[in-house]
């Protein structure tokens, strides 16, 4: 077959047209919509609050609400607890319970609010409350996160519902913290599965789940039967972006109204609001092997950390140098402790002294960090390593992912771990030092790699106290740990930045990272 020049051009033109058509069809076939997305309902209307989070909630199971990614959505929005801790004052305030009393040393009685309904229209009764506490605190098979975190030391609870508005909780030993522990339990219906976790719960909160397009967005909608004030926003739409810069950009660009967990240099600009969170960062030492088995070496490491420099230059001034493993809002915080002063010469003298006494200070040890655990973690560790070199110690840095790092954070530690300084970040959401010292300072604590029998006794005695005596007893524990053990070099009481659109009013507090109450967010008038 022969083709005339005109025919050739026509054929080339057809080929080009075919390619162009293929490209157009590819896009047309997609309809410009993305698979696995719900493209037909972009938010942005005046009555929808658009929130962007660092990650998608793995589940909305209420008994997992002490996991940040779950709790920030579910707590006090979809479900509610009987009572809740005010993150600013530390006091417990009524929610679904109106009063609670210690009717006997080991018995607490809760009176429930009347007229409360679940979002499916059913009444909230004492049977629901009993089932929810039973499910979260006693059900070992379900292994709820809140069970280990909050009820780990309280033993099995005996629950009863004497009438439709009363719940009693019997403890094995007198437990002054029982109401605080119960404040971590989100109320669910009595017919909620006790053998499997639920991804989309029915609760009594001001919002209920409208749609959850997995991987893309979650939409909550307010409902008319809520017992409290109707929230200002009829809907809330959650999206998630891993990068802080993208979350900040979404607020700056008007695509989101509120962005959580931003860093100082994520670019939130005028939309950024700083707030202290519950987290404290520290190096936790193993104390059984040289060179970290000598308290002078641990003290020297502590003195070689330039906390002010790290907070100012790396954290952008967000947070403050730490003197202990909890922040000022927590019961037991010791006001008299101050962050260790940066003193390289003094630190070097301590190392030299230990060396002269035969301590193997030249033995290398590892500084282990968890990648992306907090902004600038790698740079912080590098700065510390550099200072350690100057005082005559040899530290190697190992950054690990969460799973690998957890092997060094939780007992039993690897047998061949060697001497380790582990970078940790601890958040005391409960507001009481008991939830910190037992885990980190006691010799058998799940996350402890130091401790002494004397400190164990002190911790045990502090746990039996109430009121001011309790505050002083725990303050004493922190002082003793610093002076006699020095199993930690505290870095900073951390802070965070919230991106807030100009047309939105919200005051973040220490609990914002764990519990973002949508009802507290209002449009600016």
């Amino acid at each position, binding site marked *: 077959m022969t083709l005339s020049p005109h025919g050739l051009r026509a054929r080339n033109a057809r080929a080009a047209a075919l390619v162009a058509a293929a490209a157009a069809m590819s896009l047309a076939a997609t309809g410009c919509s993305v698979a696995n997305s719900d493209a037909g309902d972009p938010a942005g209307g005046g009555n929808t609050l658009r929130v962007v989070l660092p990650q998608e909630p793995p589940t909305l199971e209420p008994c997992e609400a002490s996991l940040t990614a779950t709790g920030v959505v579910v707590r006090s929005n979809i479900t509610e607890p009987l009572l809740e801790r005010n993150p600013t004052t530390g006091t417990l305030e009524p929610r679904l319970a109106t009063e609670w009393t210690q009717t006997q040393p080991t018995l607490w009685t809760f009176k429930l609010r009347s007229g409360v309904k679940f979002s499916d229209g059913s009444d909230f009764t004492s049977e629901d409350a009993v089932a929810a506490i039973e499910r979260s605190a006693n059900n070992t098979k379900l292994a709820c996160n809140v069970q280990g975190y909050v009820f780990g030391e309280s033993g099995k609870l005996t629950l009863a519902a004497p009438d439709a508005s009363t719940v009693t909780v019997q403890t094995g030993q007198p437990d002054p913290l029982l109401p605080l522990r119960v404040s971590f339990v989100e109320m669910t219906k009595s017919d909620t599965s006790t053998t499997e976790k639920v991804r989309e719960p029915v609760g009594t909160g001001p919002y209920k789940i409208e749609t959850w397009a997995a991987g893309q967005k979650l939409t909550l909608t307010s409902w008319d039967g809520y017992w409290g004030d109707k929230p200002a926003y009829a809907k809330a739409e959650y999206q998630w972006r891993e*990068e802080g810069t993208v979350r900040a950009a979404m607020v700056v660009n008007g695509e989101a109204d509120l962005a959580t967990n931003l860093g100082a240099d994520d670019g939130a600009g005028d939309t950024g609001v700083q707030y202290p969170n519950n987290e404290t960062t520290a190096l936790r030492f193993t104390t059984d092997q040289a060179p970290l088995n000598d308290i002078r070496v641990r003290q020297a490491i502590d003195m070689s950390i330039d906390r002010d420099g790290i907070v100012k230059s790396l954290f952008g001034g967000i947070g403050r140098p730490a003197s202990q493993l909890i922040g000022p809002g927590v019961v037991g915080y010791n006001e008299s402790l101050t962050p260790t002063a940066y003193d390289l010469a003094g630190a070097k003298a301590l190392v030299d002294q230990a060396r002269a006494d035969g301590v193997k200070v030249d033995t290398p040890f590892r500084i282990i960090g968890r990648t992306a655990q907090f902004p600038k973690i790698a740079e912080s560790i590098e700065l510390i390593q550099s200072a350690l070199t100057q005082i005559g110690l040899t530290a190697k840095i190992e950054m690990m992912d969460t799973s690998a790092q957890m092997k060094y954070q939780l007992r039993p530690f690897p047998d061949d771990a060697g001497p380790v300084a582990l970078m940790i970040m601890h958040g005391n959401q409960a507001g009481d030092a008991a939830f910190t010292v037992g885990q980190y300072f006691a010799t058998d604590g799940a996350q402890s790699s130091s401790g002494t029998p004397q400190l164990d006794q002190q911790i045990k005695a502090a746990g039996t106290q109430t009121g001011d005596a309790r505050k002083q007893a725990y303050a004493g524990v922190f002082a003793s740990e610093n002076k006699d053990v020095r199993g930690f070099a505290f870095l900073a009481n951390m802070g965070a930045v919230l991106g807030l659109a100009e047309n939105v009013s919200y005051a973040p507090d220490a609990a914002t990272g764990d519990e973002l109450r949508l009802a507290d967010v209002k449009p600016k008038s």
Partner: protein
Amino acid sequence: MLTFLRRRVLTSLLPLLAVVLGVFVLARLTGNPTALYLPENATAQAREQFSAANGFDKPIWSQLLDYLSGVVRLDFGTSLRTGESAAVMALRAFPATLQLAAVTMLLACLVGTAVGCWAALRPNGLADRVSSLLSMTAASVPDFWLAILGIWVFAIMLGVLPTSGVDAGGLSWVLPIAVLMLRPAGVLTQVVRGAMISALGSPYVKVARSKGAGERRVVARHALKNAAPPALTVAGDLAVGLINGAVVVESIFGWPGIGKLLIDAILQRDFAVLQAAVAITAISIFVLNIAIDIGYALLDARVRQKVGAAA
């Protein structure tokens, strides 16, 4: 051709099985994920219960048998993280990645071919030098940096594109595709340029020119057709890389694809999701490779003859 296809599919099954087994073994080498899923101070009893409930307490060969028997039934198990079917999660996410990769690759091929041909027409000329510089830069720039820069310029400064997400219709595609296509477009430009320079200097092109064929015909009908096979091979590799490498772009732009799912599954030691996602990705890559082989045969008469002879 059918015989060739049948043989190609059968030879692909072995590596596919190796991938399925490999991901199972490698995942288990990272250890028991119980610590990630239970409270930090969970009791030893609770940890044992969790391990037993998810089969982590069994010998690895027993876990492997359970896994393989599930794969045969297309049951990859349940996600530890979400409680959903792992296969459902992977199948839900995969089309979004496929869409992104397909459109990106098509555009990268068009751009790479056009610019590569243009540069090859006058080797070492201004157009060639400029396109070489740009294409090499495009092939070298990290996706992460480019994505953040793109958001800053086009979303924040100019306000013409959304920062991320999939709600803005066609506009949602622009930044992810632009970021994702730069590297393949740059590489393809270089490959097409080299192949075209070689082809344009070939005797058959000289013959065509001496017979009076126009430059457009010489380029399109003679040189490009002969330069296409190496470009197709590279394009195939790049397409595979796109499916695997969309992790960064999906994470930054909130694209609900399998790359993000895969990296989350790795970090969370969510073995079932990891295995399902890898299996689906591996199958798609094998399909793609077969498609490339067919394309090669269609473009290159020598290969076509070999295929015919083998059949």
